[in-house]
């Protein structure tokens, strides 16, 4: 059952450079049980911002009916969103899409969660859920620079956590792939979300693993009706097969869609 609700903002604060943590409450939160799904936010009701913004579910407290989102305030919509204050309402559509498959990892197995930049948030809820199922979780989180790092502590509480920055101002230096190699991390499944080049690198290195990646694409409707967010299917000779990121994804098993 998909729905739309005006959630109430419980708190909003900047947790890293331009990265906002937004906590909202409303009964819709009860439906947000699948990590990797996203919400489609209408920033306000003025008609100069027509399109909703897709933001991943970062954490949910089903009992208290709250949901946490982390987002980068960068463009027109997210900047305006960042000005909203406690008590204000926000029109949320969702949860949408297909999230990360929890049952791809058995109890006792190890899952490696690899996040890049603003792709990190959905991994948090995923990690919590995996852990609850008795999965051993390891996190590799890549950021641009020290000022962009967030949620390190939160992730550390759930499992081993490696932070890497491109400019070396925090944690190790380089890319997430460097860390995985250097630390020789072993795992049964990998779940990843982040910039496409990162996903492409992981996909080519770990194509033989159980790897799930979450994609980003510009969206119109977010519900599968407009065909804005499609991608090609690996091995499709006709060239007309497709997957929609909004409804078939955003999470796909490695090798299913063309990056």
């Amino acid at each position: 059952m998909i729905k739309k609700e005006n959630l109430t903002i419980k708190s909003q604060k900047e947790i890293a450079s331009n990265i906002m943590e937004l906590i909202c409450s409303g009964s819709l939160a009860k439906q947000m049980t699948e990590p990797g799904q996203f919400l489609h936010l209408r920033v306000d009701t003025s008609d100069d911002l027509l399109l909703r913004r897709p933001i991943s579910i970062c954490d949910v407290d089903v009992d208290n009916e709250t949901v946490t989102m982390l987002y980068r305030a960068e463009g027109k919509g997210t900047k305006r969103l960042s000005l909203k204050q406690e008590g204000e309402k926000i029109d949320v559509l969702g949860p949408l899409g297909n999230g990360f498959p929890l049952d791809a990892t058995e109890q006792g197995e190890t899952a490696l969660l690899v996040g890049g930049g603003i792709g990190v948030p959905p991994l948090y809820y995923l990690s919590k859920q995996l852990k609850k199922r008795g999965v051993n979780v390891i996190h590799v989180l890549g950021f641009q620079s020290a000022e962009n790092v967030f949620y390190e502590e939160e992730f550390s509480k759930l499992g081993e956590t490696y932070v890497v920055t491109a400019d070396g101002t925090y944690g190790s230096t380089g890319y997430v792939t460097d860390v995985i190699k250097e630390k020789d991390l072993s795992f049964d499944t990998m779940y990843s979300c982040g910039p496409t080049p990162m996903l492409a690198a992981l996909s080519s290195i770990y194509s033989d693993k159980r790897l799930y990646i979450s994609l980003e694409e510009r969206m119109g409707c977010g519900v599968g009706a407009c065909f804005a967010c499609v991608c090609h299917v690996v091995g499709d000779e006709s060239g007309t097969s497709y997957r929609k990121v909004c409804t078939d994804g955003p999470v796909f098993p490695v090798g299913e869609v063309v990056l």
Partner: protein
Amino acid sequence: MNRLKVELPGLSMKNPIMPASGCFGFGKEYANYYDLDLLGAIAIKATTDKPRFGNPTPRVAETSAGMLNAIGLQNPGLDGVLSNELPWLNQYDVPIVANVAGTEIADYVETTAKLSKAENVHAIELNISCPNVKQGGIAFGTIPEVAAELTREVKNVSDVPVYVKLSPNVADIVEIAKAVEKAGADGLSMINTLLGMRIDLVRRKPILANGYGGLSGPAIKPVAIRMIHQVSQVVEIPIIGMGGIYTAEDVVEFMLAGASAVAVGTANFTDPYVCPTIIEELPALLDELEVDHVQDLIGGSWKKCNVHS
């Protein structure tokens, strides 16, 4: 009396609201949100003879009070629509407007011939205006003779009334409208999108992979209202109005301009419930405006006397 009911060629509509082609897929997605039987009609996504993937992504961009799209007519092709999409829609008691696109007259003719025979297709909407496909599209919609010929050929094979969907990217919309009316069109749909562009300042490249795209949303509403006002006064056939409709007030404005029914496009993306919401709000607005029946609004901005039925 059902004060929202409107009758157009082939389309007996409970109310004047239909989702616009390309903004509602083939209905399935929005059926998760509400009962499609609430709608006056449904205009389904453009169908072409063969399946199409469309343009590379990104395919949408936001603009002030509007959006650009360059989907490029992605669709499962005639056979796919006939075998999968239309049968599914058959569970609803809603007339279907099948939007047809192509790159040659022969494509349009073939697609129309077959689609118009489907049980629940009540009208064909000829998309002669989609600005996204390099071959075809643009030319059909901007040259009166070409638009007329296409209309004639398609009318010859269609089992149901044919609405021609006009492009706003022309100097004289009235000329085109008259030409397709004379060629036998049963109605007009207007307007399709305006051709626009956005550039990413950092990448120095268009935001849309395709470069240009179609501008829709409230930004284009004044252009749509003007064109419908111009055309409705000189043609006899009814007009399905569209371009930036978000509210019941917008519907009334389009009908006063001269539309007999309307289509809602981009607004579905902003609010999936927009169509049922508008339908629900219309009666109260009619009360406020002291109008008995929506039909009494049609052309109200230019008709000499507004006789209430």
